[in-house]
Each structure stands twice: as structure tokens, then as C-alpha cells.
């Protein structure tokens, strides 16, 4: 393969990886934007999404066999189920803590994350499960680069979800309420916005996007594991910070950028795949030193 082909092949890989990061980063950024909480459990909800999708898909495949429709159907169902779980978590664990010190709510989020991952571990005995979708390895050849249909569909699905989210946040009344709450919660209450309902809606959307990413990653990599949410949670946070935390287009941009950086980064001599994670955390730390607001983030003005 020529250098150009390697670059193109990595572009395809990077876009796929980046779409997963972007979908998970969106949930981080939305929740952070609206209640200034770093939801540590977000990566684990991605994992729960994958397991939920696995469960629904095995039920559907048992009846009608493997198909794209089955995958789509299980994706929608698990997005709803995991979204509701996200709302439940928000109600039980985060709602009472909103007035508490920051440290307490962060530890609460950590506890929720541990509960989610360890309960899945208890159910699966910590084993890898094969997420067999049997969608085939057909694809198209673009020049010397081979792209499977699965990859194309995944990137397209991620793009559709992101465009839908963008339209929802910017064109609907609910989206307007969300943006308003992230600016001033108390003023919104005075304006007659049901703040708690909108916060719940934000959790629902953010979590179901993570769940969608989980199912897509499960069907793409072919196996799921209770610990799969940990690293992607960290990476998605990195992506959200790269784009500017609190900014929705920022999370999309940051996710794609991080995915591309990672897949090109592993091609640099001496940085093999085993150093991939060190590479992206290194980026996070450097970014926080030089541009903590990220690419599209706004400088926060602290008022006393």
C-alpha cells in the first residue's frame, strides 16, 4: 500500500472511531452544559446500551433472523430503555445532590458508575460476549481502500443522529428551553419553564445517544464486555474538552478530531497501538494547559 492509501484507510477508521466518541461526548457535554455535572456514569450507560442492544437483538434474531431491520429495531428500543434508565439515575442519585458540594456529587456519580459496571459484571461473570450480527463483510472499493457497508451505515447513522440532535436543540421549543437553562436556571423557572422536566429530557437524550453508540460499537467490534465503557468514557470526555465542554457542535467536532488523531497517531513510528491511550490522554493534558476552553467553547466568566 502506498502512503496515500494508508492515510485514506486511516481516515475511514478514524471516522468510525470518531463517530462513537462524538455520540458519547454529546451526552457528556449536554449534561455538563445543563447542570454542570461530570456524569462519570456516562461511559457505563454506553456499555449498558451495548448489552441492552445485545439482549433485544438476540430476542429478535431468534424470531426473524439476522437483518438490518432487526438491528435498527433493537437500537431504537435500547435507546429508549437506556434513556429511561438515565432519567431514573438522575432522579434518584443526582437530583437530591444538586445543592450539595461539588465533591459530593462527583463521588455520587462515581458510585453510580461502579454500580452499573459491577452489576453487569455480576450478570456476565466478567466474560466477553460475542455480539454476532452477521451483517457480512461486503463493501465497496474506493481506489485501493476497502470500506465495508457496515462502516458506511454506522457513520451515516451517527451523522443522522447528530443532525437530528442539532435540529432538535436549535429549532424546537424544548431545545430552546435547554439552551436557556444552561444559561440561567433560576430565570427560566421565573419564565415558567419546567426546569426539572427539561433536565430529565436532557438526560434522556444524552443517555440514549450513548446507548446508540454502544450498540453500534458492539456490532462493529463484535464483542461486548462490562468494562468497555471505562476507556471510552475517558476518551469521550477528552473529545468534549477538545471541542469545548458545553458546546454541542464542539462535542461532534472534538469526537471526530480525536478519532482521526488516534488512528493517525498509531501510524507514527514508535507510537504503536499499545500507546494509543497514552497518546490521547497526553492530548487532553496538553489541551487543558494551553486552551482549557477547547475549540468552540466560550470562556466562562465567573460572577460572584
Amino acid at each position, binding site marked *: 500500500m502506498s502512503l496515500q492509501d494508508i492515510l485514506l484507510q486511516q481516515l475511514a477508521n478514524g471516522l468510525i472511531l470518531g463517530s462513537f466518541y462524538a455520540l458519547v461526548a454529546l451526552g457528556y457535554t449536554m449534561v455538563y452544559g445543563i447542570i454542570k455535572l*461530570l456524569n462519570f456514569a456516562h461511559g457505563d450507560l454506553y456499555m449498558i446500551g451495548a448489552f441492552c442492544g445485545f439482549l433485544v437483538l438476540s430476542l429478535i434474531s431468534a424470531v426473524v433472523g439476522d437483518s438490518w431491520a432487526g438491528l435498527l429495531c433493537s437500537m431504537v428500543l435500547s435507546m429508549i430503555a437506556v434513556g429511561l434508565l438515565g432519567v431514573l439515575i438522575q432522579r434518584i*442519585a443526582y437530583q*437530591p*445532590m444538586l445543592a*450539595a*458540594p*461539588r*465533591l*459530593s456529587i*462527583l*463521588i*455520587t456519580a*462515581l*458510585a*453510580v458508575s*461502579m*454500580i452499573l459496571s*459491577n*452489576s453487569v*459484571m*455480576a450478570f456476565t461473570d*466478567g466474560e466477553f460476549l460475542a455480539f454476532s450480527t452477521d451483517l457480512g463483510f461486503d463493501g465497496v472499493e474506493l481506489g485501493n481502500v476497502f470500506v465495508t457497508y457496515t462502516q458506511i451505515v454506522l457513520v451515516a447513522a451517527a451523522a443522522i443522529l447528530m443532525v437530528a440532535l442539532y435540529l432538535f436543540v436549535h429549532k424546537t421549543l424544548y431545545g430552546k428551553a435547554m439552551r436557556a437553562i444552561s444559561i440561567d436556571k433560576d430565570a427560566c423557572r421565573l419564565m415558567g419553564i419546567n426546569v426539572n422536566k427539561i433536565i430529565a429530557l436532557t438526560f434522556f437524550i444524552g443517555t440514549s445517544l450513548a446507548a446508540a453508540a454502544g450498540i453500534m460499537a458492539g456490532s462493529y467490534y463484535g464483542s461486548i464486555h462490562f468494562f468497555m465503557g*471505562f*476507556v471510552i468514557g*475517558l476518551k469521550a*470526555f*477528552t473529545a468534549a*474538552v477538545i471541542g469545548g465542554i458545553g458546546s454541542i457542535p464542539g462535542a461532534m467536532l472534538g469526537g471526530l478530531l480525536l478519532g482521526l488523531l488516534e488512528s493517525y497517531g498509531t501510524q507514527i513510528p514508535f507510537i504503536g497501538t*499499545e*500507546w494509543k*491511550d*497514552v497518546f490521547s*490522554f*497526553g492530548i*487532553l*493534558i496538553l489541551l*487543558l*494547559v494551553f486552551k*482549557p476552553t477547547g475549540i468552540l467553547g466560550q470562556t466562562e466568566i*465567573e460572577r*460572584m
Partner: protein
Amino acid sequence: MADISNSTSTNSAQAVKAGGLMAWLEPQQNRILVLAALAGIALALPLILNNYAMEVMSSVWFYVVLCLGLNIVVGYAGLLDLGYAAFFAVGAYTTGILTSHFGINFWLTIPVAIFFSICAGVIIGGPTLRLRSDYLAIVTLGFGEIVRIIARNLEITGGASGLIGIEKPSIMGFELNEIQHFYYVFLLLAILACFISYRLQHSRLGRAWQYVREDEDAAEAMGINRVGIKLYAYVIGAIFGGVAGCFFAAKMTAISPETFMFQQSVLILLGVVLGGMGKIPGVIIGAFALVLFPEVFRELGSMRILVFAVVMLIIMLYRPEGIWPAKK
């Protein structure tokens, strides 16, 4: 604020009103009496315990040191550190590499480990302490992973299988090789850690930490160098972890990267949060609970962490300050 009243009579008057054991504990001489009795019990324990119980108790003292170290960062300065195991790893690997590859005496590796812990603390704390505390949490998490991945991928650290054959330390020809010896070493370390924590808490620096924890902006307006004192907390915590790591390596004689996984950091954090952030007896209780709970509930097996996490959530929801919190 609370510190000033802690040592004076205003507080003891309130406590007498509250009555009971806590009121009796208020005067200095009664406290010293209790502490002396506890120290006596701790010193005498090896006479009555079997080897298994000794092993568990050494582990308790070891976690007391780690939890007190993290308590300086989380409890005193109010910074959430999710990668504390990284400092522990820095200490353990420094001792491991220097003794097994270079044949350097164990005791000489401790200052080197302290130096590396300080470096690690400054590298990671320096850039992030200026930012909001939640950034710090996730950066420390990432840092903890970086240290573990580096330890797993480098040749000098022994890769995934780790280091073996770390020399046992000796004091003037007397080799520390039995569990009793290490029990006393860890007990001594724990007492030293308590003493340092106590002195720090009641120092000018300790009061500055408390001020920053309660109200960062007001503290800065009072002329406290916010970033500077946070960095102090971070680095001192790192030293505690590093030194504990040295002794851990010497006791185990073998270390592997998996000892320093994220779960280890969470476990140490749990000890701090469970007992009561920022209060030494609370943290010690937390460390006891941390080590004894899994030993007592052995049959729970891998469900242990799950039960732990649920307990942590409930404590946060109903007693956000911990079981025995610091006075306000």
C-alpha cells in the same frame, strides 16, 4: 474557622451539653489516654494474632497510610483525585527497579521515590489545578491510566508480568522478612502519617486548605495563593503514596501493573469518603472498613465492589460528610 474553635473552650462547652462519650473525649488529657491505650493495643496485637490476622492487620495499617495521604488531597484541600494509585505505583516501581536492577539499598530508594512522586505530582497538578475541580478529577483518572499503561509497556518495569525478586530491607544487619516485622513497619508508618496529617491540619497551610475548600474566591481575596496551596496538597499526598509504595514493594517482593488499576484508586478514595473526609479518626475507620469488610464478607466474592458502591451512594445521599465527619 472551625480549627480555631477546635482547641479552645467554646467548643468543649458545647460538647458537654451534647454529653456522652464525645464530651468525655474533649479534654486533651483524656484524648491522650485513649490514644495511648489504642497504641498499646496495636503494639500488643502480634502477641495474640495468628499469621492470617497479622496479614490483614498489616494491610489495614498500609491502607491507613494511603487513605491519610489521599485525605490531604480530597479531605483537606477538597480536590477529587481519581488516580491516586499512580503515586503508589511510582513509589513501588522506583524501589522495585532500583533494588532489583541496580542493587541499591532499599532505604536509599525512599528519597528517590519521594523525588519522583514530587515530580509526578507537579507535572500533573501544575497545569490542572488552575482549572475547575471536575477537570482535575478526570485528568487524574487519565493520569492513573497512563502510569499503568507505561508500566505495562516498558521493559525496565517488567512489562505485564511486573517485577519480581525485590530485596527485603534490613536495619543494621537485621533483615525484615517476617510478617510481624512488616506489621510493626506499617504500624510505625501509619502513626507517622497520623502525626504528619495532624500537624499539617493545624498548621497555617492546613487552615489555608480549609479556607480554599470552603470558598475559593474568598480565600483568594484574602491573599491565599489558591493554585500554590493546592499544589502543596497534591504533592504532599503524592509523597505519602510514594513512600507507602516503597514499603509495599519491599513487603510483597513482587509488583505488577494490575495492582495499580483504577479500582485501587477508587478503593483508597472509598476509605476516605466512607469514614469522613478531612478527619483523621474518620479516615482511619474508613481504612479499617475497607480492609475488614472484604475479609468478613468473603462469600460475596466479586459482588463486593457492587455492595461497596451501593454503600457509597447511600452514604453520599444521606450522610454526604461521611460516617464521622469533620466538625464545622
